[in-house]
Structure formats: structure tokens, C-alpha cells
């Protein structure tokens, strides 16, 4: 159970006010309607096998039931949204928080090709160094040591203990690829 508590409360002085819940409800309804029309085009048709009877269970049945529930819940949410007292915590974020989250997302986006193309150790070292510097670390020697040592340790543990592969460059040298020698 989450630690924060949200409660639905009564409307304020009888007025119905649009809020983020109302917008979300409208989006859910639109999504449900769109899904309903998409369903027949997004489900493959079952093969007809001569001599074998089909199950008589249309493949669209369960998706249509879920979509119908989605629509009904969206409508309920729409009516309920005017009486829910919840704050939009996204709007409460200050500039620093937005910047930090966006920068982190960008770094994560860059980390994916770094890791795949340069290898886990190098990619991770760059990521850890950059991120720790951005988040206030100024001890570059310590950062350099940690950003190389920990990913190398992880690479070794994943390879030897768990016998799984992480992207290897440049740690694809003989002693480590033939770990049984260690």
C-alpha cells in the first residue's frame, strides 16, 4: 500500500470544476472508443481448419469486454472527477525538479546506445560520471574510481556467478571471457 493517502471529498460549494482528473477521464473515454474501433483490425483472423470445429469463441470477445469496462469506468470517473480533491503533483514540481527529471530521462536515453555500442562497463562509467557530476559530486577522482570499479564488478558478477552476458566491449579480453581460469 502506498504511503500517501488520497481521499475523495465532496464538491466545494456545489460547483463542478474541471481538473486534471476530468481531463484524464475524457482521455480514457476517447481511448476506449478508439480501442473499440481498432479491435477488429488488430486481431488476426483464426485459421479455418477443415474437419476441425472451432471453439465458437470469437477472439474479439475478451478485448471487447475489457474495452467496454474501460469506457464505463471512464464515464464513472468523469462524473466522479468533479468531486475528487487531489492535487496535480506534476504541476507542483518546481523548475529544478522538472530539469532534473528531464535531464535524467535524456541521460537514460543516451545510456541505451552507449551501453549497447560501447559495452556495459564503458557506457555505465560515462553515465555514472556524468550523472554524479550533474547531481553535485565534485570529487572527480572518487567518481572516476566508482564509475569504473562498480560496473566492472557487476560485469564480473553477472558473467561468473549468474552466467549471463552484458554487452562486453571493451571487457572482452581473454582472461575474462575464459573466466574459468580465474
Amino acid at each position: 500500500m502506498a504511503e500517501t493517502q488520497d481521499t475523495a471529498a465532496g464538491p466545494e460549494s456545489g460547483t463542478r470544476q474541471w481538473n486534471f482528473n476530468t481531463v484524464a477521464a475524457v482521455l480514457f473515454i476517447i481511448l476506449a472508443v478508439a480501442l473499440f474501433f481498432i479491435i477488429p483490425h488488430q486481431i488476426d483472423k483464426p485459421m479455418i481448419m477443415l474437419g476441425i470445429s472451432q471453439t465458437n469463441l470469437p477472439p474479439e470477445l475478451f478485448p471487447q469486454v475489457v474495452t467496454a469496462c474501460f469506457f464505463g469506468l471512464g464515464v464513472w470517473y468523469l462524473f466522479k472527477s468533479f468531486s475528487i480533491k487531489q492535487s496535480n503533483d506534476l504541476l507542483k514540481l518546481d523548475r529544478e525538479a522538472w530539469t532534473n527529471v528531464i535531464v535524467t530521462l535524456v541521460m537514460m536515453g543516451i545510456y541505451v546506445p552507449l551501453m549497447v555500442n560501447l559495452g556495459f562497463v564503458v557506457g555505465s562509467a560515462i553515465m555514472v560520471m556524468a550523472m554524479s557530476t550533474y547531481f553535485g559530486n565534485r570529487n572527480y577522482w572518487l567518481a572516476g574510481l566508482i564509475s569504473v570499479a562498480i560496473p566492472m564488478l557487476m560485469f564480473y558478477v553477472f558473467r561468473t556467478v549468474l552466467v549471463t552476458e552484458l554487452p562486453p566491449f571493451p571487457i572482452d579480453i581473454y582472461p575474462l571471457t575464459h573466466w574459468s581460469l580465474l
Partner: protein
Amino acid sequence: MFESFLAGFELALRLDTMLFIGGGLFLGMFVGALPGFTTLMAMAILLPISFFLDPLLGIPFLIGVYKGGIYGGSIPAILVSMPGTGAAVATTFDGPALTKKGQGRKALEMALYASVAGDLSSDIITIAAIGPIAAVALLLGPPELAAILFLALIVISATSSGVFVKGLLMLAAGLFLAMIGQDPIGALSRFSFGITEIEAGIPLLPMLIGVFALPEIFVNIEKKASEIIKSEDLKVSGEPLRWHEFKACIRTIIRSTMIGTSIGLIPGVGQVVAAFMGYAAAKSSSPTPEEFGKGKLEGVAAAEAANNAVNGPTLVPLLTLGIPGDNLTVILVGAFIAQGLRPGPQLMEQQGPLVFAILIAMVIANILFLVIGKVCIPFFAKVVTIRKSFLLPLTLVFAFAGTWVFRAQPSDLAILVIFGAIGYICKKLHFDVTPMAMGFILGPTLEYSYGQSVILAQGELLNFLFIERPITAVILILTPLATFMMWRRSKRLQAQFITEK
């Protein structure tokens, strides 16, 4: 069932199992001791490790993380009034006051012993209860299973945090996400929108890590400045706990264990509420309630015994019916599925010794819990000083590494980031992701059981339900009533929790 229990004993008593449980406990306590890092996040990030291990190593490993994490949060809670996890908030009422009086060591040891006692007792109750429940579950057919799954999903949505309809919408979203890929009956491809990477469905692991672990990281990075805690404040000082001091709290520990065990059986309520309820019950039963909040060992014992006693019973619906009771057990379902085991009635029938071995390993884990906790308390006390500027990027690296080893697909990393963003937005807009994860995991089973039921009904569904399968009809009719009762009880418990807070 008894033969399975005995066979499980033999399987559980392995050195490697103990080593991995010990490792899980250590890592769980380590993460639990870090404020801002939750047990849920630890389990999500460490989940991939369990994939590459034998089920008897991987699943007890994660259970060790679970147990250790719940206890670990009490360490900074007691020393610096900073709960490492939500379950340790109630410990801050008396823990820091005891530290100020120079009784920090006593408080930490009481937290440890109460946690072990609560956890051990509830694990034994779980083992005793699981056999009869599993025997009943074996009698269930597809219609009954579909009805129970439906009931469970609705109840979990009702008891999750936030507004009921939002929980249900997240559940429906999860069911839809589960439909992407192939349908479980005819194996027809659907909703892939021409994207090759999701033609087999959305992969479970990146999705779980994304929605449960990454949002916590994003919340932690909102503020750059880290809280620097002086290491002098984290010194474990004072005399050790005496036997007569522990003995004086035994009744409180038993009461809190009962409270925690009962709450563990209610889906969606969890450790946080259990801790507060245990504390409130101890205070109201005490001849000196005015001493609570000013440094009373009984206060620490009550909260810690209750929050750890929740751990065992949450596994009962998981192992017998395949229904996770909270977001932590959702991760365990992921571990089972990755091992090719589907929790539910068939699991107990086909892999009974394995299931009992896991449960017995949980009981044995409590002994390791005691040893590791006692030896490592001074180390865990210092963990809070680790700089977030290093901890956060390293946690991300681990999350990415774990996702990569799942299938070695770059698209999995993209899915991880996408669901991380979704999870963060949901958190900020007060949408609980737990029903979505439940819907995603249980959706295929629900659809399969539903489909089998429709086929068995041969076009006469109502007749089939009410005449041939009356139990199913009763469950479906009672679903709205049960949902309302669970929702009301959950909200009442949450309201009491707010009052105590």
C-alpha cells in the same frame, strides 16, 4: 500434502539456499536502511538475478530481500528519525527518543528481535494454513478460478491507495496491456500495431522494474541537494538489550504478530497500516500509555513485530490461487513466472515439495535474519551517509543491467524507460500502478479461464453458471458486496493510520 511438506524439508536444507537467503537479507536490509529507497524498488531491481538461479535459490533470495527490507527501514528510523521505508514510520515515534536517551542499541536490538519474532510466527501460521487452502483450491475449475481472479482483482483495486474508480481504470489498463501480443487461447497475434518488438507481448521484467523502481528514482532526483547526515549521529551506542526488557514486551509482540498476520491476509493493506495498528493497540493496552512517544521500547517492539508479521500471510493467496496480495508479491509472481512456474492450484499439486521448500526456507531465513541483523547493525547504520549522487546512477545502472540480461534486447531498455516515465506520471497524478501490474500479470490467466468457461457453457452461459457451477455464480454475486466491505475496511484502517500519524 504432508509428504510434500517432508520432501520440501529435504530440499530446503541446502547450504547454497542459505547463502542466497543470507545475501537477499543483507541486500534487503541495506536498501531498507536507505531513506527514499523502498523494498519494492530493491525487489524489482534484484528480480533479474532470480531468473538465472534455480527456483530454490532465486525465490528465497527475493524473499530474503523482502524480509530484510522491511526490517532495514527501522535502522535510520531509530537513529536519525528518518524511516528507511514506509513500514518504519511508526518506529520513529519512540526510536529516536530512545537514541537520545543513549539507548539506541537497545532500540535497534528490540526492533530486530521483534521483527524476527513476528516474522517467524507468521511464517509458521502460513505453513499451517497453506495446506488446507491449497486442497480447496485444487477443486476449482476454470469458471471458479475466473470468478476468484475477477473478485481478487476488483478487491485489490478497491483496497489500493487512492480513489476506487482510478484503481479500476488502472486494472483495465493492465488487462489491456496484457492483451498485447498473443491471445492465450488461439495464439492469435493482436494489438502489436506492426511493432515487431511487442509481437510476443510486452516483456514482464522491464515493465515491472519500470513501473515500480524507476519512479522512486525519479522522486529522489527531484532535489539535487542530498541530506548530509553526520556519521557521529549514526553511531550505535548504549547497552545491549537485556532479557527482562525483551520479556516485558512479549505480550505486545504476540499481539502485534496477530494484528500483522490478519492484515497480511487482506490484499492491498500492507506493512505500513499493520505497523500503525500494532502501535496503536500496544498504546491503548498499556497501563502507561502516556509514556508512548517518549522513548518506550514497547512502542518499537509493537510496530516492528506487526510490520514483519505481514510478510508470511501475503504468500497464501499467491501460492494457492496465484493472486498476489500486494505490490511486493507481484514481484514474486514475476520471479515464479520467469522460472516457468505459474503460482496457483496446479503449482501446489505439481510442485508441492518446491513450494513447501520455499516456505520452510522462509522460516530458516529468520535465523539468518537474527544473525545478520545482529552482526551488521553498525554497518547498516552508516549506509545512510552514502551519497545520493552516486547511489542513484548506480541504481539505474543495475536496473538497466538487470533488464538487459533478461533477453539482451535493446527494445527492453526502451520499454523500461517508457514504463518508468508512465509510473512516475501515475505517481504524481495519484494513480496506483499496483492494479495495473496485477491486471497485466493475471490478465492472461483470467482470459484463459474465462474462455474455457465460455467454451464449456456451449452458448448457455447463465444456465451453466447458475445450475452447473453454482459456486461461480455465488462468487460473482458476492463480488460487489465483498468489494464494498473490503473497501470500507481498508479506508477505515487507512483513516486510523492517518490519525495515528
